[in-house]
């Protein structure tokens, strides 16, 4: 007999956690409850959970912080976000990532279906995630050119472009098409870059070539940071700064052409995104940024 799946229900309303506890318990799940963020964190660290039903507005530690921690340190745990704060938080939650998003008031039929669906999917154990890095000393590059079987790229990616549409297009493409199951941040001004990097610690930076002029100083600053990115990939219109980009390419920085005009038939944007995603995939292989199991989304 399989052990019962373990669900943590997090909501600041005791009535809701109690009601859902009774409901899911009667369906054979093992239930944990938290009415504040700190209790939630304690349970996450102590108990080996399968799924978290997470409210966002919580006392002590808020749900956004908990979601970020879950995605970073417990990627094998499924997370269903349930919040009334759809307008304020939806974009942020999308960026951090979750397995499902429910707007309150909750419809129990839909919630139950999603819980059953997520818990019937294959779970990636934390041991299997840590495995690839255990065998490769840090700093040493692997010579493999493809991902291991059942593995998919996973990285923290920062997209830096002054063009909102490009940033959104890239982020959506990586997220929705499942090219890379990572965490994404978008920074749109050159001045924002360093702040974002300090906060987000990206593995890979996709940098619009319009910022290439600042890359000299930017690159030096990056190298001095405690957690410099593992890879920088430039993209943009070659007509603008090809000379500089070429010299950067000689220094090992990859450059992917991306049309300034998204309807330019000479440089179809789809093709540019495909090449950019290939470059991300290669960087993930090179730096062992992958995870075993099924790709979300």
């Amino acid at each position, binding site marked *: 007999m399989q052990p019962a799946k373990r669900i943590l229900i997090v909501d600041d*309303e005791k009535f809701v956690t109690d*009601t*859902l506890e009774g409901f899911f318990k009667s369906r054979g799940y093992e239930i944990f409850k938290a009415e504040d963020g700190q209790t939630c964190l304690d349970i996450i660290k102590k108990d080996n959970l399968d799924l978290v039903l997470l409210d966002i507005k919580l006392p002590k530690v808020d749900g956004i912080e908990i979601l970020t921690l879950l995605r970073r340190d417990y990627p094998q745990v499924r997370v269903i976000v349930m919040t*009334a704060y759809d*307008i304020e938080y939806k974009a942020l939650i999308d960026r951090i990532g979750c397995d499902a998003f429910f707007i*309150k008031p909750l*419809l129990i039929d839909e919630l139950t279906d999603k819980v059953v669906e997520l818990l019937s999917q294959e779970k990636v154990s934390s041991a299997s995630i840590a495995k690839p890095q255990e065998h490769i000393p840090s700093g040493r590059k692997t010579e493999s050119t493809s991902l291991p079987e059942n593995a998919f790229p996973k990285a923290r990616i920062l997209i830096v472009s002054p063009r909102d549409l490009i940033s959104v297009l890239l982020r959506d493409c990586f997220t929705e098409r499942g090219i890379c199951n990572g965490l994404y941040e978008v920074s749109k001004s050159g001045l924002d870059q360093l702040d974002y990097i300090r906060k987000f610690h990206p593995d890979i930076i996709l940098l619009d070539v319009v910022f290439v002029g600042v890359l000299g100083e930017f690159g030096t600053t990056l190298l001095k940071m405690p957690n410099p990115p593992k890879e920088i990939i430039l993209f943009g219109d070659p007509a603008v700064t090809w000379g500089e980009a070429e010299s950067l390419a000689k220094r090992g920085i990859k450059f992917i052409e991306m049309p300034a005009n998204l309807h330019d038939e000479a440089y179809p944007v789809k093709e540019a995104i495909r090449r950019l995603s290939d470059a991300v995939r290669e960087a993930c292989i090179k730096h062992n940024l992958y995870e075993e199991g099924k790709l979300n989304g």
Partner: protein
Amino acid sequence: MANIREMFHKVGNWHNKISVSAGVTKIELKERFKEKAMPAEIKKLIEVLTDLEKNAVGASRSLNELKALVYDIIEPDSGKPKR
């Protein structure tokens, strides 16, 4: 007294409590009384609970519209009008 943001949060929580409790009760009833053996009054009760769930969702939608209008002119944490 709670500020405007907290008040909206509270009302939203009430809607959620109504929806969750109606939904859970509805499913429990459906499971206890299988379709064929379900008495007419239980069928009616399930319909009422389904309506209650829908009404809670409708009320919440209106609340969100109201919230957007209020937040537009009043700063929700301080309660002061926006300039």
